């Protein structure tokens, strides 16, 4: 692991992300041939393509130091989740560079790779492998996962027979057994029934406050205020402002109220 001065954990450098909204939908061989023969249509199509271009992120740059908790705020579609996915390595930025020094636990969507036909026991191993846990870790923490999810009696039942709350409990328990150096959270996930919601909320809070570096997206300004040291305010893929959490949240609240 490389370390730069000041102990930078994540470095996002001029990251831009482009999506083509109408990309493959309008494509057909016939259209392709017609366009090839008719320059006017070809031009029209190119313009349509440019119009369909959507920049989810534009020149976003920031650094995160070890142990910092950074909140991302902004309206729907501002590019917050895309940014988290880029940092997690799920997407590669169209332009710019992302560097992360440390193992990342992306809690963006839970239960990735669950197979509904397999039992809970089998899914713990499968989902763990998908999340990149080594076999030894899953074996060592197996009991802990089962205890936390409280699904002792259903270990050998196929997941398709579970209620959605039970699936969410299992997924949450698997995702949170690691102690990552970088935690990426898209909305605090409180899942299951009331008792489990409380338990999972506590677990998330203790993970966030436990000294790890956290990137945190939320629409709850209060939670951002109480958890984060710094905040980044995104709007239409552009960083509006970044810095001290209280200050940025205030600005964002003013912006929303005056709209």
């Amino acid at each position, binding site marked *: 692991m490389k370390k730069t001065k000041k102990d930078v954990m994540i470095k996002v450098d001029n990251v831009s992300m482009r999506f083509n909204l109408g990309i493959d939908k309008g494509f057909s061989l016939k259209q392709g041939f017609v366009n090839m023969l008719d320059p006017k249509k070809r031009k029209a199509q190119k313009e349509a393509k440019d119009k369909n271009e959507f920049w989810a992120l534009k020149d976003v740059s920031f650094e995160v130091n070890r142990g910092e908790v950074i909140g991302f705020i902004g309206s729907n579609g501002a590019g917050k989740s895309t940014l988290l996915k880029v940092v997690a390595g799920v997407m590669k930025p169209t332009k710019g560079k992302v560097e992360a020094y440390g193992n990342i636990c992306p809690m963006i969507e839970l239960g*990735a790779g669950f197979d509904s036909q397999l039992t809970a026991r089998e899914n713990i191993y499968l989902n763990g*492998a998908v*999340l990149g846990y*080594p076999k030894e870790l899953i074996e060592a923490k197996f009991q802990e996962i089962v205890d936390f999810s409280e699904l002792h009696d259903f270990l050998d039942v196929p997941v398709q027979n579970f209620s959605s709350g039970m699936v969410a409990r299992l997924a949450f328990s698997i995702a949170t057994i690691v102690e990552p150096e970088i935690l990426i959270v898209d909305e605090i996930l409180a899942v299951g029934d009331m008792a489990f919601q409380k338990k999972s909320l506590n677990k998330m809070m203790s993970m966030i406050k436990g000294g790890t570096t956290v990137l945190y997206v939320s629409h709850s300004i209060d939670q951002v205020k109480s958890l984060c040291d710094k905040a980044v305010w995104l709007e239409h893929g552009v960083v509006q402002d970044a810095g001290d959490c209280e200050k940025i949240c205030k600005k964002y609240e003013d912006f929303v109220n005056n709209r």
Partner: protein
Amino acid sequence: MKTFMNNIMYSLQKYKFLMSQLVSRDFKVKYKRSVLGIVWSLLYPVLTMAVMALVFTNMFKMSMPGVNYLVYLMSGLVLFNYFSEASNLAMSSVVGNFSLLNKVYIPKYIFPLSKCLFVGINFLLTLIPLYAIILLTGTGLNWYHLLLPFAFICLFLFTLGMGFILSTISVFLRDMFYIYGVVLTLWTYMTPIMYDFAMIPTQLQFIFKLNPLFWILYFVRDIIIYHQVPGINVWIYCLLFAFGFLFIGMFVFKKNQDKFIYYV
């Protein structure tokens, strides 16, 4: 080149566990709730072969002088079935796992590779009925059988290369699933599985020789049926086609994999 190889080795080591989990998932899901379970891996090829043997020996009166037709047919079928099933599954593996690719970082080559491995294990099981036929028909064994893994590895690498190419194309062009179905049917008849290659008119034979599976089959049958070591040219063709397709596939896949996510 060396660091490239090192990277591949490191990545394979790191994702070994995930791969084994994906392969075992495929196995569990495939045989869940079937009464005979894994026995089907043995039974299925035997029954298909029995049907084909019945049709070709009794209805079309197919026979080859000096060669046991059953062994000829079975050896062709076992190898071709591996190719067709593995390439088909590998093709849909990337599209089929989009929901996963969209959520967590996993190297994308894992999906075609795990499918080729999964069908590969099935393939090894189908060797049991093949050898049963070889022994029962009195074709007999010889020491050259120890060379067969060479052909199997070439078949695996060629299929993996095809899997990379097909899975990449199918992300951008979903029509590929249908197109490839037709191509596979044509491929079945363009490969001497059920008929003797000598039946093909001489002026057309060169087309058949462009087929990598032709050479792999040639290699295997030289050993199993004719009890001889394949000529040096057969070895070379097998190697060239296997690594040629593997490298093309890896290149195409690597070049396009970052764009996959836009075509969900």
